[in-house]
């Protein structure tokens, strides 16, 4: 396959950037999108140019590091992560636009790399349980109803990639935050912090400069892990309950 790429190039956080056009030859349909970018970077290095910076780590769809907006879609046209997207999803001769996550709370570091530490601070604000860790507890010591376990697991799938923020026209982190709040809030292990967790995490989310939710649903469409839109309604319910219950 022969492709034309238009890639966002920005040398540093405080400099201007622009979409820059590159031609890539001999792309195999079996390559992942990141392998295709690796091919481009090898050529750029041989030509003595600065390679395109992009985030990646596991390349198997589980770490949440990769973060590319491809043709206007966070993680591209398939419902998966950028690293698990394959070139067979494109046609020979296509022009493909590659951009970084766009949100005030995710400033560009370089090229396609953005700073997502705002997510870390939301997690630090309440995305934990204060249960003893150490040796594994007896599996049946804390019974969890099947429905709750399923609900928790569905939300535990979030990998913190930030595609929801990138896709949202308001740069809102509601889907990510709701995944964490719902995952921990429904389990007995998370019960002690049930109220403070949602209040603290939402406070932090607001403090980081993410936008509010207008229920456009773009986040849930982009999410590679299928965190559903009703998760936001579930978090709203948790927040309103906590706000009533624990004014402190």
């Amino acid at each position, binding site marked *: 396959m022969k492709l034309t790429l*238009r890639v966002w190039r920005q040398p540093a956080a405080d400099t201007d950037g622009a979409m820059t056009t590159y031609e890539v030859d001999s792309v195999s349909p079996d390559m992942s999108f990141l392998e295709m970018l690796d091919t481009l970077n090898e050529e750029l290095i041989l030509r003595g140019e600065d390679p395109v910076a992009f985030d990646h780590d596991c390349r198997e769809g589980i770490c949440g590091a990769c973060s590319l*907006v491809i*043709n*206007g*879609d966070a993680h591209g046209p398939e419902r998966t992560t950028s690293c698990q997207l394959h070139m067979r999803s494109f046609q020979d001769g296509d022009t493909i*636009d590659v*951009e970084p996550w*766009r*949100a*005030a*709370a995710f400033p560009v570091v370089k090229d396609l790399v953005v700073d997502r530490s705002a997510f870390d*601070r939301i997690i*630090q*604000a309440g995305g*934990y349980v*204060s249960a*003893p*860790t*150490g*040796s594994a507890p007896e599996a049946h010591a804390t019974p969890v109803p099947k429905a709750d376990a399923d609900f928790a697991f569905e939300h535990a799938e979030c990998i913190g990639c930030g595609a929801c923020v990138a896709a949202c*026209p*308001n*740069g*809102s982190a509601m889907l990510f935050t709701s995944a964490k709040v719902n995952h921990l809030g429904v389990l007995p292990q998370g019960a002690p912090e049930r109220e403070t967790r949602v*209040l*603290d995490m*939402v*406070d*932090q*989310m*607001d*403090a*980081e*400069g*993410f*936008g*509010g*939710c*207008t*229920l*456009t649903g*773009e986040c849930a*469409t982009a999410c590679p892990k299928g965190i*559903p*839109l*009703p998760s*936001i*309604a*579930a*978090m*709203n*319910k*948790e*927040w*309103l*309950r906590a*706000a009533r219950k*624990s*004014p*402190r």
Partner: protein
Amino acid sequence: MALDTRTRRTPSKGTGAGQRPVRGGPRALWDSTIGKKAVMAVTGLIMLGYLVAHMMGNLKIFFGPGEFNGYGHWLRTMGAPVLHHEWGLWLVRIVLVVAVVGHAVAAYQLSRRDIRARPAKYAHTKRRTSYATRTMRWGGVILALFIVWHVLDLTTGHTHPGGFQEGHPYQNVVDTFSTWYGNVIYLVAVLAMGLHVRHGFWSAAQTLGVGNARRERVLKAGANGLALLLTAGFVSVPVAVMTGLVS
């Protein structure tokens, strides 16, 4: 066994140690994006409830001037003899003004925040959301302007075409809908209202935490039905005047 060893959260922007945000009460509600949205949802639902009653009242125009003007008169004696003349009506007006102002201020503040949160646009843009979803802000502005004109036109009579007659709403309505601009302004606003309700009713359910996957279809159908019913009900009045059914 390692118990939680870090009892203080890492200080970061806004919510570091010693500067915890206010908890509980109206202030905390208003200061949070979720709380402010809840205010929008509740005020929106109050206005929605009012619109249903208002539409039913308007439909009485089809039963002639006697019934319609009598209904207008009843609005002023509503709640009597417990309430004095027009007290009931003023109570409703106060609730509505509070709802409209609260809704509009929250909408303005949240919209500003949303726009700031997404300063850079994508070079490659895609349009995916529904028309009703995309037009909530401009539709809201149209509704706000309409409300002002509507009150000046048919409640106070300041901008009424021809002689405004206090106590004769039937004739006033016919006068307004006998002008082309009266019809245009009204029809545009009603269509904007229909779209606003379509996304708004379902949104309010999500905001207040009533929505979930199981209720999704019921809520969407409810929103569409309500929007359609209100639009048809409100549109029927100017159409009736234009076609001479009401004159």
